[in-house]
């Protein structure tokens, strides 16, 4: 009985976004299992029903809050574009060059999201350096996969995935959550 109810609760956890489940799912499941283990079968079924209704409302509240918080993050994307454009114009105005594309490809992005600040230096279309919270990232933790740039934690997990639009001199990324603030170089997505 406990196993079946735990399975139902585990399936209901899918109401939350994956990032939330990855962070809290195991703990929530453990607490649920401990709670219903203390109950009789009818009480356990009733408790499971109540927990699932609560999951539904909690997950809805979480998603609504997330949408409300994404709006400032979108401003961050626009801000990054403006900064990147400013760098590009400045580099173009300093000296005439044989290739405009080569100059546009040499950009330093500085951006911010709820987890903190990061920079990425791109030379000739390829990322050559990056910092997270002003700490330089070792070269082996900077990965270029097609149009994507991945910044890795010391254990090799992706802590930031950035899409680089070369022709538009622009980057976009899914804002990192605020709970990564202060440990953004290790906080896996």
């Amino acid at each position, binding site marked *: 009985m406990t196993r079946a109810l735990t399975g139902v609760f585990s399936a209901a956890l899918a109401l939350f976004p994956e990032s*939330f489940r990855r962070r*809290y799912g195991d703990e929530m499941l453990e*607490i649920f299992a*401990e709670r219903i283990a203390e109950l009789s079968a009818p009480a356990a079924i009733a408790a499971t029903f109540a927990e699932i209704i609560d999951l539904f409302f909690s997950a809805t509240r979480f998603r609504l809050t997330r949408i409300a918080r994404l709006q400032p993050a979108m401003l961050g994307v626009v801000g990054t574009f403006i900064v990147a454009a400013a760098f590009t114009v400045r580099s173009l105005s300093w000296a005439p060059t044989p290739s405009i594309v080569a100059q546009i490809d040499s950009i330093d992005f500085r951006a911010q999201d709820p987890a903190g600040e990061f920079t990425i230096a791109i030379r000739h279309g390829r990322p050559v350096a990056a910092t997270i919270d002003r700490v330089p990232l070792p070269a082996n933790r900077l990965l270029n996969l097609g149009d994507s740039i991945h910044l890795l934690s010391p254990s090799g997990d992706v802590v930031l995935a950035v899409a680089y639009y070369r022709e538009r001199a622009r980057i976009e990324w899914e804002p990192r959550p605020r709970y990564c603030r202060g440990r953004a170089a290790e906080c896996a997505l």
Partner: protein
Amino acid sequence: MADTKEVLTPLSAAILFALADGASHGYAIIREIEDLTDGQMKPHTGSMYLALHRLLEDGLIIESPMKSDDARRRYYKLTDAGREAARAEAGRLAQLVRIASAKRLIPRGAL
């Protein structure tokens, strides 16, 4: 940090009060809240973790490095801002109780 006057729900306040004595994990926090409120508040798991998540995001609690034999179990503890928010909330509640007391609204034996 977010404005704590805006974010502190009764459950968030109860979590901060439960953590006032030191770091604790999710299930122990739920038990503590049930004990502190004489069973009047029985947080469900989803609400509990949503509240914990918001408190973490607002910097009022942090994960504690304390470990148990169960690797899934995370411990949480108050930050300085969290303790301050708990104090402010307790002060606000005490003021409300004083007002209710002056108006003779508190049942005998309730305090």
